[in-house]
């Protein structure tokens, strides 16, 4: 391609390159068996190692949501169990997935982009290819697969911890006894909410890992380029999480 396209077309060029990279990744899924060791390693690094920070964020967001809901709703005419009925669905539907998503856009997304970006600018990706290895199959597929598998797991952890945090704080601040909270939550629980939350987290897992792999894989320009790719991966992932959230909510609900 010797023609230079006007800059205004840049977003479309990026989108095209992103789509091509994904297509290559999908074609490489056939070789998944070869790279199973990498998938396992990435599941540990993306998933297991993220559990503490996800749990911490979930604990606080569950607790804060409970306190604030209590503050907004409590009056002599409303049963306190309503707090559980409000907090639990909002954790399951929105908070669990979105808090996890934002957190991991930073933790996982930035790390992936920095790793792949460094490999790109130090010619390690070229070295893989030159050996006759499929760098997309070796580097990108395991990360995306691990993200898609582990994000729902992290989502479940987040929900459990957030709800536990809500019950705990509600109980010990005297706003709502644990029994009432759970009773309220049970009464209004819809299994579809949980399915929806799982779908969301799976999509977020894909969005974050795919975008970050793309940013890292196409890094240019030395250490500075790696820095840029890292920031862009985190920011772009966050934006697309919001977009995906909206699209999913409006199509599935």
């Amino acid at each position, binding site marked *: *391609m*010797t023609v*230079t396209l006007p800059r205004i077309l840049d977003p479309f060029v990026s989108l095209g390159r992103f789509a091509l990279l994904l297509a290559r990744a999908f074609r490489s899924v056939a070789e998944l068996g070869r790279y199973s060791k990498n998938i396992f390693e990435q599941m540990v690094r993306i998933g297991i190692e993220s559990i503490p920070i996800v749990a911490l964020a979930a604990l606080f967001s569950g607790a804060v949501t409970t306190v604030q809901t209590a503050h907004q709703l409590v009056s002599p005419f409303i049963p306190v169990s309503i707090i559980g009925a409000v907090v639990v669905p909002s954790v399951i539907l929105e908070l669990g997935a979105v808090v996890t998503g934002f957190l991991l856009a930073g933790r996982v997304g930035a790390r992936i982009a920095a790793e792949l970006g*460094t*490999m790109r600018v*130090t*010619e*390690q990706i*070229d*070295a893989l*290819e*030159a*050996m*006759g*290895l*499929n760098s997309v199959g070796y580097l990108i597929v395991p990360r995306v697969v691990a993200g898609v598998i582990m994000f729902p797991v992290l989502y479940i952890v987040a929900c459990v911890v957030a709800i536990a945090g809500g019950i705990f704080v509600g109980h010990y601040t005297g706003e709502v006894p644990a029994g009432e909270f759970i009773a309220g939550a049970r009464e209004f629980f819809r299994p579809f909410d949980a399915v929806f939350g799982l779908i969301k987290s799976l999509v977020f897992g894909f969005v974050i890992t795919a975008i970050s792999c793309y940013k890292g894989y196409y890094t240019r320009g030395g250490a500075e380029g790696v820095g840029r790719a890292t920031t862009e991966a985190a920011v772009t992932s966050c934006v697309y999480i919001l977009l995906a959230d909206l699209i999913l909510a409006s199509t599935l609900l």
Partner: protein
Amino acid sequence: MIQLRDIYKSFGGTPVIKGATLDVKEGETLAVIGRSGSGKSVLMKHMIGLLKPDSGYVLVDGVDINKLAYHELQKLRRNFGVLFQGGALFDSMNSFDNVAFPLRSFSKKSEADIKRDVLECLDMVELPDVGPKFPPELSGGMQKRVALARAIAMRPRYIMYDEPTSGLDPETSNVIDQMIKSLAVRLNVTSVVVTHDMHSVLTTADRVAFINEGRIWWVGSIPDLHECADDTLINFVRANEYQIGAGGASGNRPHQSVVPRQTN
């Protein structure tokens, strides 16, 4: 045999290669020389399909590599060993695993055989003990030698060296040059040495290609080079000799003449 035919390549509208035609003959060592930024690395990457030309074609053993399906290209690439400019060792693995990596990926050898091969390769680059060290713990020159060990692990038919001696002290440079020479003989490989180190060129190469202004400006054998009357090339070589005379970074090789040539 590698044949480049009328290669054009630009990046973001800036032409880098503007019509390059070049043959690398079976069994020879071809040095590609040129100033920094003249497109030597870019040209080398075309030879293994890491970059695709905007126009023109690349034939390896008569096959247009850019027309191959990806899995066929991968198979073809296994005939190549590439020493990248910065070494490009995987920094998530220690030196041993770096050298073992291609063997584990492609050979069906047992771990014991792989271990023997890796140690043999590390011996060849005179670094028998660095196996457990990770790339960041090695000096630049050691990284390059481990990378060379990795490049030859699969016994390639073609070896590409991108600036094998840049940034190395004269003695290590001599070691590397001798290694390039002896590999060419012992493994009967076809080699491409990208460099701007004239010492390296004179020691290792059978023929020389000079890149200038995006073209293959001059090609010829070492004796031809001594006879050459092209001003641009003479200036390039002189600038290098001046460096050698002045004890410049890459040129000064006081031991060059006393280092015995390996004869095996």
